[in-house]
C-alpha cells in the first residue's frame, strides 16, 4: 500500500514537471504516434483484404473454371458444360430439382473516377440462381435488373467512387445505352466491386457465347471429392474444380501474408527507433532531475517506488501517442479504396487494431523506461546532492 502511494506521488510529481520538459515529452508522444499510426494503417489495409481470405468463404462453395484458366478472363465454359456440371453428383438441389448453381461472365467497362482519372470496373453477368448460392445482396435504391433488358445494378462503393453511376444514369457499352436501375450493398464481399446484370443480356451485347466461372453449393463439404472425380472423369468437359477457399487462398493468400509481414517488419523497425528515442528522452528527464531524485531517496522513498514511477511516467507519456496514432490511421485509412485491378477494399481501423496499437505502445514505454528507471534507482545520493 505504502509502495503504491509512493509510486503515485512520485509519478504525479514527475508528470507535473513535464511542462518544464515539454520538448522531450513531445518527442516521445510524436515518435510513438508515428509508430502506432504506421502500424495500424498497414494493418487496416490487411483488414480490408481479409474478406478475400480462405476463412471468409463457406466450405461447401465450389468454383469451376475452364481447364488451365488462372483467372476468369481466360476461362471458357460452354452452356453445355454448365448443364453437365449442374447434374454432377453432390451438387445441392432445390426441392423442384434446380441445382444451387450459377454461372458468370465478366466484361470490363471503362469509367471515369470521381477524381477525373480513367478507371476500369467489371460488369458481371449472372445467370439465374445466384441467390441460391450467395448471401443475399441488399437493394438500397431503385430496383433489380430485368432479364433481357439493357439494365444493370451498381454496388454502393462504386456509385461513390466513379462518376455517372447513380440510378437513372446511362452507361455506353458497345455503343448501346444501358440503364442503371438499382444500387445494392452486399456484405463486404468481392461482389461489392462489380456491376451486376443478367448474363444473357451481357453475352448478347458483347457477342460472347460462353461463361467464365461456375459457382455452386454442395450438399455438404465432404461431397467435394466425389464431385471433383465425377467431373474429371467426364470426357465431354474440360474444367478445373476448386473450392472457394482454395481459390481465395491461391489468389489472395500470398498478398494477405505479405501484408502482415510488411506491417510487422516496418512496425518493428520503427518501434526500435522509438525505443531508442524513449530511452534518450527518459535519460534526459532523469539527468535533469538528479537532485530532485536524490533528495527523494534521502528522505526515504525506496528504489522500488522510484523504478516503478519512472516506468509509469514512460508509459503515461507514450499512451497519448497510441491514441493519436490510431486516430490518424483511422482518419487516413478508413473507407473504400480501389486497387488497380478493380477490386474495392473497405479499410477499417477495428477495435482489435487499436488494442494492438496500445499493446505496442506499452511495450515501447516499458522497454524504453527500464534502463533509465534502473539508473534513477542507482543514483548515488551523496554525489548527486553535492552537484550544483
Amino acid at each position, binding site marked *: 500500500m505504502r509502495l503504491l502511494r509512493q509510486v503515485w506521488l512520485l509519478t504525479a510529481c514527475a508528470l507535473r514537471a513535464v511542462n518544464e520538459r515539454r520538448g*522531450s515529452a513531445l*518527442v516521445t508522444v510524436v515518435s510513438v504516434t508515428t509508430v502506432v499510426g504506421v502500424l495500424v494503417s498497414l494493418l487496416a489495409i490487411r483488414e480490408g483484404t481479409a474478406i478475400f481470405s480462405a476463412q471468409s468463404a463457406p466450405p461447401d462453395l465450389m468454383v469451376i473454371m475452364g*481447364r488451365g484458366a488462372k483467372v476468369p478472363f481466360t476461362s471458357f465454359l460452354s452452356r453445355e458444360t454448365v448443364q453437365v456440371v449442374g447434374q454432377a453428383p453432390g451438387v445441392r438441389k432445390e426441392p423442384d430439382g434446380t441445382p444451387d448453381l450459377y454461372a458468370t461472365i465478366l466484361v470490363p467497362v471503362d469509367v471515369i473516377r470521381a477524381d477525373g482519372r480513367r478507371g476500369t470496373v467489371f460488369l458481371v453477368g449472372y445467370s439465374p440462381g445466384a441467390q441460391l448460392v450467395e448471401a443475399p445482396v441488399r437493394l438500397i435504391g431503385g430496383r433489380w435488373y430485368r432479364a433481357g433488358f439493357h439494365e444493370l445494378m451498381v454496388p454502393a462503393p462504386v456509385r461513390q467512387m466513379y462518376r455517372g453511376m447513380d440510378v437513372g444514369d446511362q452507361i455506353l457499352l458497345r455503343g448501346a445505352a444501358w440503364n442503371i436501375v438499382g444500387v445494392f450493398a452486399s456484405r463486404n464481399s468481392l461482389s461489392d466491386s462489380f456491376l451486376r446484370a443478367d448474363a444473357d443480356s451481357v453475352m448478347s451485347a458483347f457477342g460472347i457465347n460462353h461463361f467464365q466461372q461456375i459457382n455452386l453449393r454442395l450438399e455438404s463439404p465432404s461431397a467435394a471429392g466425389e464431385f471433383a472425380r465425377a467431373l474429371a472423369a467426364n470426357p465431354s468437359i474440360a474444367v478445373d474444380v476448386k473450392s472457394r477457399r482454395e481459390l481465395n487462398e491461391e489468389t489472395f493468400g500470398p498478398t494477405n501474408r*505479405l501484408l502482415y509481414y510488411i506491417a510487422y517488419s516496418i512496425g518493428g523497425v520503427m518501434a526500435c527507433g522509438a525505443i531508442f528515442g524513449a530511452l*534518450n528522452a527518459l535519460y534526459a528527464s532523469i539527468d535533469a532531475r538528479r537532485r530532485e531524485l536524490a533528495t527523494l531517496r534521502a528522505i526515504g522513498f525506496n528504489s522500488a517506488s522510484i523504478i516503478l514511477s519512472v516506468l509509469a511516467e514512460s508509459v503515461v507519456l507514450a499512451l497519448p501517442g497510441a491514441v493519436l496514432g490510431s486516430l490518424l490511421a483511422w482518419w487516413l485509412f478508413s473507407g473504400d479504396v480501389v486497387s488497380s*485491378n478493380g477490386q474495392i477494399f473497405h479499410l477499417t481501423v477495428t477495435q482489435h487494431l487499436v488494442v494492438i496499437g496500445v499493446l505496442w505502445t506499452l511495450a515501447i514505454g516499458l522497454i524504453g523506461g527500464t534502463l533509465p528507471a534502473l539508473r534513477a534507482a542507482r543514483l548515488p545520493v551523496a554525489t548527486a546532492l553535492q552537484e550544483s
Partner: protein
Amino acid sequence: MKYLPLVWAGIAHKRSRAVLLLLQIVSAFVLFGTLQGLSSGIKQVIAHAHVDRLYVGNRVAAANMLPLSLLQSIASMKGVAYITPEADLEGTYQKTDQSVPVVGTNVDAFLHIFDEIHASPGAAEALRSHRAGGIAGSALLRQYGWKIGDRIVLQTPMPKTDGTRDWAFDLLGSYDVPDAPEDADSIITNFSYLNESRLADRDRVNRFVVKADAPANAGSVSLAIDTAFANSDHETRTQSDADRLATQIQQTVDLDFIVRGIVGAIFFALLLATGALIMQSVRERGPEFAVLKTFGFSDRFVLLLVLAESLVLCLSAAAIGLALAYLILPQVRPALTELNVAHLPTVVLLFGLALAALLALLSSCAPALQAARHPIVHALAKR
C-alpha cells in the same frame, strides 16, 4: 580537419545519449533505404521496360481470341515496325506437373521484337524451313536433359486434326535470356504449325505483339489499333510492356503513397527527437562554449562547431543505415516483388545522405544559434 577532436569531444559529451541517437537515426535510415530502394527500383524496372513493345489482345475476354486476318491491317498501320501473331499451347512433359509452355509465332518478327531473347546461330533459319520444329529455352534443356535434334512430345488439352492431343516438336536450336536466365523456359515454334494442326480455333490468335518503329510513337500506334477495331465484334486492347508491369505491381495499394507516408512520418519524428537532444546538449554545455569564446574563438566558430557535430552524427548514422539497407534489400525483395530489382539505386543513396544533411542542419540550427549568441558572462555565471 584540426578541429575534428573538438567535434568528437562534443559528440562524446554524453556518450550513451549519442549512441542512442545514432541508433535511432540508423533505424530510420534502414527503413528509408529499404522502402525507397524498393519503390525506386521498381520504378527503374518500369522505366527500362520496352515501351515500344505492344500487346494486342481481345478487349472483352482474353479467352475470345482475335482473328488472324487483323494481322494485315495492323501491319499496314503507320508506325508498326514488326508484328507477330502468338498462339499459346499449355503442354506437359511426361508428368502432369511438368508444364512446358509453347508459343507459336512468326519467328523472325518474334526475335526482332523480343531482342533480349538470343537464339542459337542458325536456329531461326532452321525453324523457318521445318514447320514442326521448336527452339527450346536453355532452362528447359537443363531441366529435362534435352538435346538439339531430339523429338519432344508434349501432352496438351488442345486436340489436333488427327484426333490426338499429343504434340511433337523437333528441337532445332536453343535460346537464352541473358538478363533473366530462368525465363528461358518455353518452346518457340511456328504459328503455322499450331494453327494448321489444331482442331479448333483455326486462324485465331491469342494476341499480336507489335514493335513500334520508335518508343515515341508507341502511344499513337496503340491508340490507332484500338480505334480501328472499336465497336467491331473483335475489339482490341493494346498495352505496352510498361503498362502491364505497372498494373502487376500496384496490386493492392499505392506503394508510392505508403512509402512516402512512412518516410515522412519517420523523419518528422526524427527531426523533433534530434532537435530536442541537441538543444539539451547545447544547454548543458553552455559553460564549455563560453570557455571557447573566452579563448578567442568567434561566435561563428561555435555556431559551426554545433552544426558540424550534428552533421557528423547524422551522416555517419545515415551511412550505417543505408549500408544495412543495401544488405537487407536483396533478402526481402523476392518476398515483395517478382521484378528483378537488383540493388539499392545510387540515387536513393545520394538522396538519403542529402536527407541526413538536411536533418542535421534543420535540427541543429536553433541550438547552434543559441550557443553562438549566448553571452559569455551569463554562461559562466551558472558555474
